[in-house]
């Protein structure tokens, strides 16, 4: 919990609120997403019924480049890439195929990729961007808050931009003035809506 500056669960039922604090903590920990949040406020009112989660996210500015997970050994007429982490292997191959053509790209085994007759220097290959964690972060956050929110709350609205995340869910159609409620929750965290 240390990385979060503010973490509150607000609920008219104190016992239920305490359980949801535990659930939120467990699910975020399980999915390794606790460190993503700088501030998090969860509001649940089962009487309405509505679930609102508002969060300020820590900045993730790093783009993933080939050099981050692969070592490049230039040889005559070819470059051998030794992959240390497979996570971004598939998007990297896709980019290589599009850029160099599949004739110039070979993957003899799981952790090795060989590029034949490419004009770029090894430094330029290392700089190729293959992934942006902030894009998948939004999807991951929506997934975990679907788990955290009570299951019957199937009418949802999610907003993720400028380091802010909002997840609203309810059983019925969401009220028109839901933006005001979300603004109130941001204000509780000391943020301007």
């Amino acid at each position, binding site marked *: 919990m240390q990385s979060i500056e503010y973490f509150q669960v607000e609920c008219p*039922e104190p*016992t*239920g609120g305490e*359980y*949801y604090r*535990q*659930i939120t903590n*467990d*699910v975020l920990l*399980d999915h390794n997403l606790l460190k993503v949040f700088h501030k998090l406020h969860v509001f*649940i009112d*089962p*009487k309405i*019924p509505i679930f609102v989660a508002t969060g300020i996210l820590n900045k993730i500015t790093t783009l993933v480049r080939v050099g981050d997970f692969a070592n490049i050994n230039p040889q005559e007429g070819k470059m051998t890439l030794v992959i240390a982490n497979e996570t971004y292997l598939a998007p990297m191959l896709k980019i290589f195929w599009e850029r160099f053509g599949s004739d110039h790209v070979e993957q003899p085994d799981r952790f090795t990729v060989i590029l034949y007759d490419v004009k770029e220097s090894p430094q330029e290959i290392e700089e190729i961007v293959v992934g942006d964690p902030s894009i998948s972060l939004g999807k991951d956050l929506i997934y975990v808050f679907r*788990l955290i929110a*009570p*299951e*019957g*709350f*199937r009418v949802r609205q999610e907003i993720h931009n400028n380091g802010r995340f909002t997840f609203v869910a309810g*059983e*019925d159609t969401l009220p028109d003035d839901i933006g005001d409620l979300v603004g109130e929750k941001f204000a509780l965290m000391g943020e301007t809506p």
Partner: protein
Amino acid sequence: MTLVPVTYKGGIHQHDIIIGLIEDLGGYIIQKHLIAQEVVLQAFVPREDIEQIARIAKPLFGEINEAPLVGTEIAIVSMSLEIHHLPHPSCDFAEYARRIGAKTNMVSPARGPGKRISAINDEERDVINEHDIAVYAFGNFEACIEHKWPAMRRGIEVPVIVMGGPEEETLRRIISPPADDYVGNVGRFMRRTKEAEEIGKLDEIVAKVARVLEKRRGEIAKDPLSVSPARLMEIIMEQVPAIHDVTSPTPLTVQMAGLRVKLPYDTFAPVLRDLGIESGVRLGDIVDVLPSRMRDYILVRIRPFSETNTVI
């Protein structure tokens, strides 16, 4: 002779001595599990012979314990089969109850979750009613439990135990019509029950289930069944060879006042009704052979003595 449910745990070596002993004493083996070098028997044995079995089992490093959940089928009614409610806490309890002898089935209404939208249909209701007892696993909010309870309870005739997040007193206050018992502080949670306090809660649920089942056993004893379910199981095992081809872990599931036979109803219902038991009594005379709502199984309900005037 009163038969009591027990579990026997011991080494696999010479365990057939115990099986033979239980059968010779007039008891019945309900289920036998062989787990590596260990054998676990679930059985009904005469109360007065438990000490004798324990004495004979001692040199074999076996122990026998009374297990009130043996020979019962429990429905765990989970509000959904999504990750929100499974595997914790519904599976945790189902698995715990199985370890001490119960046969548990997970039942989940298609529209269980939610407050206003939750509902139960006739098939789900009938499936729950085929069990000896239902344990409802609710969520954390008293407002939701209070609102959805009447809809979830409608038409349920078997005893019901409610577990939910609020305190037990709160559950007692908000639940109307009343359930048979309540276990508080066991709502929705997303981690495994492994702390001593959490295991204690599972024990509390088991104790309450056992208490309600004992009460039901007492009621049955006042008007005894025409044949004991365990005996009926043995008769079917002997006389219906097709039951040995069923691949289910429990082809015959013993209940408190009946039996679930995992054979197709259309083919085997007439066969079961025609089974001769003894002295000209056919099975159809003392039981109702009904189609189960669970797949195409057969549900055998044993009629009490007051209806058949026969006890076998």
